[in-house]
């Protein structure tokens, strides 16, 4: 049965539908955040000052740039330039790893100061601050997990691009990978002000 004409669009729908489920998954967390922030506005404001604005901004810029390189990698393959595409994907991964490295550093620094769920330090502090950091670790943690998965998948895409499985006529899997990566970027676009810029 004739299926090839459908495959690309079906795959694209499939990835978009999956992203919709992710919107709801993160949405549940944003719901909790918004409820607790409305309950503890002052404490959230004070707790956000514990975040390092420089690293948060840097990470945002990193992810935004990684989206650029990811998007460009698809145009590259569509123009028949597999080598450029693979290079751009590799740069995307470098950015992704940098993001995670900075996050690792941020987390480590906070944990060293005793700011982690149920720590002796945090337990003595007010409820709002406790909730802020609970949300911080859960949301940036799950986001980071998604970044990690994205890095793994893009690695596979580099392989496919290099070996010619992905071509200018057959690039759907790369495009859908890009969709996933941009989604992860958008989640961070919202996370950044919520945890670093609470005024």
């Amino acid at each position, binding site marked *: 049965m*004739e299926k090839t004409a459908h495959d690309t669009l*079906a795959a694209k*729908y499939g990835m978009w539908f999956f992203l919709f*489920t992710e919107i*709801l998954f993160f*949405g549940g967390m944003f719901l909790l955040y918004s409820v*607790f922030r409305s309950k503890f506005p002052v404490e959230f404001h004070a707790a956000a000052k514990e975040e390092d604005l420089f690293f948060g901004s840097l990470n945002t810029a990193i992810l935004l740039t990684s989206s650029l390189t990811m998007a460009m990698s698809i145009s590259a393959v569509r123009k028949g330039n597999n080598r450029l595409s693979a290079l751009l994907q590799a740069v995307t991964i470098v950015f992704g790893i940098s993001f995670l490295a900075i996050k690792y550093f941020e987390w480590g620094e906070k944990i060293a100061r005793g700011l982690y769920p149920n720590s002796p330090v945090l337990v003595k502090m007010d409820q709002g601050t406790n909730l802020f950091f*609970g949300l911080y670790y*859960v949301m940036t943690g799950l986001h980071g997990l998604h970044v990690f998965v994205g890095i793994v998948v893009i690695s596979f895409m580099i392989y496919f691009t290099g070996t010619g499985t992905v071509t200018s006529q057959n690039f759907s899997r790369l495009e859908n990978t890009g969709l996933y990566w941009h989604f992860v970027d958008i989640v961070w676009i919202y996370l950044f002000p919520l945890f670093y810029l609470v005024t």
Partner: protein
Amino acid sequence: MEEKNAAVQQMSFYDEKGKYGGILSWLLSTDHKRIGIQYLVATLTFFSIGVILGLLIRLNLLSPGAFMGAENYNRIFSVHGILMIFLFIIPGVPVAFGNFFLPIMIGASDVAFPRLNRLTWWIYLAGSFIVALAIFLPGGAPDTGWTFYAPYSIEVKANVGLAVLGVFVLGFSSILTGLNFVTTIHRLRAPGMTWFKMPIFVWTLYATGWVQMLATPILAITLVFIVLGRVFGVGFFDPSKGGDPILYEHLFWTYSHPAVYIMVLPAMGIISEVIPVFTRKKIFGYKAVAFSALGIAIVGYFVWGHHMFTSGMSDTSRAIFSFITFLVAVPSGIKIFNWVATMYKGSVVLNSPFLFAVSFIFLFSIGGLTGLIIGSLAPNLHLHGTYFIVGHFHYVMFGGAGMAILAALHYWFPKMFGKMYPERPAKLGWLILFIGFNLLYFPMFVLGYNGMPRRYFDYPPRYHTGHVISTVGSWILAVGLIIIFGNLIRALFKGEKAPSNPWGGRSLEWQIPSPPPTENFEETPVIESGEDG
């Protein structure tokens, strides 16, 4: 479309020789029909275990404390709920009958993503296994109820984290099934199979697919929060840490209410298939029935607060949720009216699929009407947490979706297995089941109205009579089930060979052999007429 001559032995999908033999040819198959059959066997197995647990619950309520202690009672009703809801009725119709028939009904050779389909089956097995671990490992099965309310679920020593992980995994099976079906319906319809020529069953699978995709992730994150609370002490639902237990209920029910539409919408789709065939009429008001499926899915997404009227949430929200709850009755009512209108002046063939379908209409209506009572704010304050609720949801889930599954089994049995079953035992089983069902569940409305709480191990003497009737009803119901399933299982081996179209159905599955060949259709069908004309 020409039917193959019955004298020519056609190879069915059972005969297909793949790369592997034996059980591997099933476990590793991407054929939607094989996946559907496996899911059917698994879900019915968990249903049977759930029934046994239900019988044990009723046994205790006959004589509290005589057969089990309170601790075990709590674990038993919790596992009963978890198995019935997450391992049977939510996967339920979509994974068994949806998998088997969706591609055929739209003229396709498989779903959009066959390998993803197989993955959902493996995920289902993995999730079920994890739930089984939670039940049998030291620590013991959860006693929280299937609802896992915080803070108890965060603090209790039972295997809650493991159980919740199992449900989390099962959720992915549901999400990906919905994703697969929605994409399939968008992209794989045969030429001429326009949206308004699709069988209603397909419409309900479409609406359900969206609910699966958009509601289940919220349960997923909620379960993550439970695990985080248990393992890391994250206190989102702990008042002493500034958290709010009512928030847990919001998050939980934001999924679990739409979940009941995952359970019942495809079931309604089955009724919409069976009634027209056995009354020899087209469904009345095709477009209304199709759109009502979407309407139920959409409106049903925003009513979850009616599970929380006594939780301590605001008056404003309670009024809003009660109002929206009444709205969702409208598309449901449209379906009921249209089924009855279909039967009007129809030429009734009183076979077992039709009997089960008609019982659906009757029993689901009772459940739905009692739903209006408890959807009203004031009565709910009295009835919440009582047996009235237990009666209500068993009428809609068992009397509704459960009966629809039995209708589907008897309707599609010839097609799926290539055998006919004897009618008389099916009808006898139905009758006994119907009597047992009402004896079991109707007294619950009376018990609940008179104040009998749910999930209680023991009770004051004035509720004794109601409980006795109910327990006797459970035994009769069990006999009915045994006859029904015994009859079908026997027919698997001893039944007469089934023709392609024993009932005179008009949808595409009846135009191909029983059982179907692997690729479903020899050539892609081209549709000229359909459900609406």
